[in-house]
């Protein structure tokens, strides 16, 4: 029963959180970690809300985006902006491919089968990525030729450039997504498909198109998170662990609520940073899941989620 897992390294966030000294630094750390979780969690929420599938390959798809930067960086040497845009575009395409070639076949199957398909996909992606780029730590920032200066904020707290970009990206992504789902034509279709797929299809909404769009957007936002994290603190194949840790954030807020994911991410990040700082750094990997269990006991459908019938075996 040799598990053959890649050597696991602790995610970069933990060490940085431990270094934090002042109260203000803790607040900054919570905001950065919360932004990471929120940016990842919105991918889970998008797919779950539209197609009721839990995508456990999200962490791997996010990592795929980060590795794609390595590929595009060597292709567009000296043009970091073009390389980043190309990587984002490629991950959008990857999301569409995943839906068209894999998840489309799983529509209408058991929930367990759909979840396991995403799990298998994740394992496949991880294996292929290690085959191409090896399991060693990579530095996309070096490949792109960009630096990561650190800024001093008021009160002695510090934040690195790419963390700041990540926080800004999270805000922008959430703003765009909320607006798109509320006012956009396709956003409205996505909400309709999520509420009642049968009626939506009867009204002429192209369900496959809507589902594919959800996968595209989810992979794209995931790739944003993966790329920015990799630019900030390097890239290893243990990145999916962070993707998995962001799932509790989505569930705490409510799996079908985008605003909830934001709140959930801040709660989980707050609990994680504070417990690591005041209790034990080893707790880093379990805190999100402790929060998740607490939420499942109290309110399984999350803070802002709709109280659906939890009967989908």
């Amino acid at each position: 029963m040799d598990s053959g897992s890649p050597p696991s390294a602790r995610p970069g966030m933990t060490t940085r959180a431990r270094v934090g000294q002042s109260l203000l630094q803790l607040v900054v750390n919570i905001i950065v970690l919360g932004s990471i979780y929120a940016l990842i969690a919105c991918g889970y929420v998008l797919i779950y809300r539209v197609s009721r599938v839990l995508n456990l390959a999200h962490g791997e798809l996010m990592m795929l985006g980060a590795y794609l930067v390595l590929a595009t960086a060597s292709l567009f040497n000296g043009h970091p902006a073009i390389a980043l845009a190309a990587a984002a575009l490629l991950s959008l395409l990857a999301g569409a491919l995943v839906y068209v070639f894999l998840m489309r076949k799983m529509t209408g199957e058991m929930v367990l089968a759909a979840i396991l398909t995403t799990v298998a996909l994740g394992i496949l992606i991880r294996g292929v990525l290690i085959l191409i780029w090896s399991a060693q730590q990579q530095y996309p920032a070096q490949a792109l030729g960009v630096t990561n200066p650190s800024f001093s904020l008021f009160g002695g707290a510090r934040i690195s450039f790419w963390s700041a970009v990540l926080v800004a990206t999270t805000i922008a992504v959430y703003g765009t997504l909320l607006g798109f789902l509320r006012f956009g034509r396709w956003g409205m279709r996505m909400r309709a498909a999520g509420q009642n797929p049968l009626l939506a299809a009867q009204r002429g909404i192209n369900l496959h198109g809507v589902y594919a769009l959800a996968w595209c957007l989810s992979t794209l936002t995931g790739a944003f998170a993966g790329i920015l994290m990799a630019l900030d603190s390097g890239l290893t194949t243990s990145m999916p662990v962070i993707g998995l840790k962001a799932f509790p954030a989505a569930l705490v807020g409510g799996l079908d609520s985008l605003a909830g994911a934001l709140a959930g991410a801040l709660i989980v990040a707050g609990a994680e940073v504070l417990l690591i700082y005041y209790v034990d750094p080893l707790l880093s990997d379990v805190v999100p899941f402790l929060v998740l269990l607490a939420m499942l006991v109290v309110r399984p459908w999350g803070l802002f989620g709709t109280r659906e019938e939890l009967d989908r075996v």
Partner: protein
Amino acid sequence: MFRPPPRASGYLHIGYGEDLALVQTRTERASLAVFAILLAVFPFVASPFELDLACQVFIASIGALSLMLLTGHAGQISLGHAGLIAAGAFTTGILAREINAPFWITLPASALTGIVLGFIFGLPSLRLRGLYLAVSTLALHFIVIYLGGEYETKRGFSTGIVVDPPRFAGMKLTDGRAWYFVLLAAAVVSLLICVNLLRSRSGRAWQALHVRETVAEALGISVARYKLLAFVISSGMTSVAGCLFAYYRGFVSIEAFDLFLSIQYVAMIIVGGMGSLLGALLGAAFITVFPYLIEALLRLLPNVQKLAGEIFAVNYAAFGVVMILFLIFEPLGLVGIWHRVQNYFLLWPFRYKPLTGARK
């Protein structure tokens, strides 16, 4: 769930004993005898490597059988199976290390740990279903692993706990062949436990609550009780598998029980075929042998030196592909293929399927 096809003819039973017998026809008896002889002869002709592989398959079978009880029959999804194996292995490791406990203490202690944890893992199932239950077992897996890791670091065993081989009447169990028969016996006992549980009241109750809980409740089945029972029995057996694993490997480390192991166990019951104990055994054998198979295939290729360092990555990718192929193209698993082959010969020279619903 897959039901085996109706036999060519019915069998006449004129007593309860005959009806309850596990092996009913002459063909079944004969094939069982041949299989038993093969199993008994195997360790004397196999290389040490093949022997080790067989032992791993037996340990995996116990875990897969217990997961099949829980997921394939009682319908409760669990993604935390590796956590339970870890719990059994760590109970054994800690007891053997701290108080030098012999195996007849660590084995029941591991089972007890599994039972207690199974009760805890099972509690969310009273409220949650499907996806949410899967997520809660996933969370519990991480917590068990955290506790194990915490013990390792705090006690200074950061690389892992060394477990001495068990002693039977003053004799150390280190020989590969002896291990083979011990683990074979353990696997057979687990299989018998599962078979008998499934054809008794509890098994019927699980089937009922798998299909529809409301109807099961209306039939007078205590849903809460039987759900918890399924978790408790399954976890107890899994932890025993963990205990055997710890003794067999002689070493317990938290790295061996990551999420990938849980997924491997779920893959075993998927690849084997949901709802069939035979499927659990086939799946356990397939998934355990699979990485070695891939390695052997890779060795056949030219310029293999380039891939040698990345063999686990190839394994990962191939494992993902196989799992996806089974989920999409053969949801009934290996057992489905087996029944199709059986059907072909049963019906020969005809080619059409028997009437569906003939014996539901």
